[in-house]
């Protein structure tokens, strides 16, 4: 099997995640779609690591995971804070600066 198939899969997953970020309105689902995009990038890193016979790609994927974990922690804390003051987790409701 061609290892490039993994790259196609990664591109597909990244695209699906990008659509989700734009289309969905629940902030938590938007966050999950961002996670999906990060994971797709990780899959590409791991595949390129295999193609090049070099572990550097896996180290970068490892760092991506750590950064994603940080992002989730802070992002979910922000969602909880917004929910506490506005009783809503919809990204469209938090448009106070616009008005």
């Amino acid at each position, binding site marked *: 099997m061609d290892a490039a198939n993994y790259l196609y899969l990664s591109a597909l997953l990244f695209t699906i995640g990008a659509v989700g970020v734009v289309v969905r309105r629940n902030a938590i689902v938007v966050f999950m779609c961002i996670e999906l995009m990060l994971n797709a990038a990780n899959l590409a890193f791991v595949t390129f690591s295999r193609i090049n016979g070099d572990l550097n790609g896996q180290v970068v994927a490892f760092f991506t995971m750590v950064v994603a974990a940080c992002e989730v922690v802070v992002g979910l804390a*922000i969602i909880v804070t917004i929910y506490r003051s506005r009783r809503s987790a919809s990204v469209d409701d938090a448009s106070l600066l616009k008005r």
Partner: protein
Amino acid sequence: MVDLAISVGTTQNPEAILFWVLAPLTVAAALGMLLVKKAVHSAILMASVMINLAIFYIAQDALFLGIVQIVVYTGAVMMLFLFILMLVGVDSSDSLTETITGLRPIAIVASVGFGGLLISLIGRATLGRSAVGLSEANMNGNVKGLASLLFSTYVWPFEVVSALLITAALGAMVLAHHQRIQTRPTQREMSTARFRGESLANAAGLPGPGVYARHNAVDVPALLPDGTPAANSINATLKARGDMLTSGSFELGKVDTSAEEEK
């Protein structure tokens, strides 16, 4: 079209079967995550995508990353997501109506264009040489190889990332910290308010919920002697959530006694 011409290792066919079984499942789960209405279902589908990706990592000789993927993502991150979902309210399902007119068609067209661009790019790219495979890099084991890279070449990024983790933990604590506007009333103050207040109606405590023979009655208000429901016999949280029943259907004479035994 020039292929990458990658054929790595000797276990081609089992991996191909694995890929062609799991890859459609992964894409279907990712698409489902977009399309389902309830956020909890999205989270479950997301967890299945994560597990599939972990299997792909392991199939690609990235054993350590596969295990980390399961432990960190499906274990910690998805658990955090579910925790926040439960905290924010499971019932807060997303209404799928679009607020910005024309957003959805534009998003779909743009994503099809973007995805097509990416995929055609991958299809046309060429490495200029055949792929190597990780059997040499993983000679001393995947974990050892990663560790020797992580603690030599990447030791500075590693330290920076640890600082980032600590900062994120602190940030979450600061964000989640809730400062009370008023001081919490002491038991003495609450007792004084009860007896020195306007009326002595609640001096002996609030009435309990109604007890009915055929219903678990925490969500049904008790009836006062004159037959009207006592609104303060129900927990305010239940009332706010709308999980409250009226006592009307349990009044004597209105109960349908012909019903079968409930399971």
